[in-house]
C-alpha cells in the first residue's frame, strides 16, 4: 500500500477528531486551539494531495491569523460559551 494514502488517512482522522473536540468544547480558547490543530492536519493533507499553493496560504491564515483574530475577539467578550 502507498505510504501517502496511509498518511492521508491518519491526518484526516486527526483532523476529524479535533473538529469534533472543537465543536463540543465549551471553553472557547481551547476550542480555538483544537481548531488550529485541525487546520495543521488539513495543511498536511493538502501537502500530501500535492496542492502546495493551498498549503502556503492555509498555514499562515488558519494557524496564525484566524486563531489570533478569534483570541482578540474572545478577549473582548466572554471566555466560556453558555
Amino acid at each position: 500500500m502507498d505510504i501517502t494514502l496511509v498518511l492521508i488517512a491518519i491526518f484526516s482522522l486527526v483532523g476529524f477528531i479535533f473538529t469534533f473536540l472543537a465543536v463540543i468544547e465549551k471553553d472557547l480558547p481551547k476550542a480555538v486551539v483544537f481548531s488550529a490543530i485541525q487546520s495543521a492536519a488539513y495543511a498536511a493533507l493538502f501537502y500530501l494531495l500535492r496542492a502546495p499553493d493551498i498549503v502556503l496560504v492555509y498555514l499562515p491564515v488558519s494557524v496564525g491569523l484566524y486563531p489570533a483574530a478569534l483570541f482578540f475577539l474572545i478577549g473582548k467578550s466572554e471566555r466560556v460559551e453558555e
Partner: protein
Amino acid sequence: MRRSYIVLISLISVIFVLAYLTTYMGILGPISSDTRYLAKLFLALTYNPDTSTSLRYLTAMSPEAVTAIVWDYRGIDTFYETTVFFMAIVSALTIYRGITNIESKTQGSGLSIIVRVVTKLLIPMNIAIAVSIAVHGHLTPGGGFQAGAALAVISVLLAVVFSGYSFGKLGMGISKAVALRSMGLLGIATVTLLPLIYGIVAGVQTYLMQNYMKVDSPFTFPIYAWGQLISGTLIWLNLAEFLAVSFGFFVIFMLLSLREETVKKYLGVGDGH
C-alpha cells in the same frame, strides 16, 4: 462526556464504512489513476515558449500552472475575490471610523525580553520568506495572497509580543497601512487597464488583463526582464496583490489589538466618553 465519545466513535465508523464503500466496492464508479485531460492541457500550455505552432496564443508563459490559472486564465475571478477582501476591510474600517493613528504615548506591556529578542530575529526572516513567495509566485508554488498572508503574521507577532501600540512606534499608522493597501489595489487596476490604454493609443484590439498575445491581438507584456522570466503581468499582479493583502491584514490586526477604552474614547461612546 460518555455520550460525546459514543457520537465520535460512531461518526468515525461511518467515515470508515463510506471510505470502504467508495474505494473497494466502487460505488462512485472506478477511480482513474491517470492524469485528467484538462490538467494535461493546462500543464502543456502554461509554459510554451515554442512560437512555431498556433498553441502559443494560449500560453501564459509561466511554469506555475496555478498562478497562470489564477491571474491569467481566470484573472477576472481573482480580481473579484480581491474586491471581496477589499470590501471586508472597508467594512471593518467603517466600524472603527475616526481612528486614524494609534497614539504611541501609552506604554503597552508586551511580553518579556526573551520573547522580544527572538521575535526581532524572526521578523526579518518572515519578511524575506514573504517577499520570496511573492516574487517567485510565477515560478514556484505561491503568489500574492500566500505572500500577503505570510507577511500578515508579522502584524500578529507585533500585536501580541510588542503590544498593539508598537505599530505607532514603528511609524506604521492605520492611515499609512490603508495607503499602502490602496497602492496595491491601484497596481492591480493599472495592470488590468494597461492593455486597454495601449489598444486605444496604438489602435489595435486588446483585452482586459491580457498577458500574452492572442490570435487577434498582438499586445504582449514583457515576458523577460534582464534575462529572467517574469511572465508578463503575473509578477506585477502578484506584487500588487501582496501589498494589498498584507497591509489589509495589518489594518485589521492594528484595529483589533486596540484596547477597548481607547476605541470607546475615539468613537465617543460608552464609559470612556
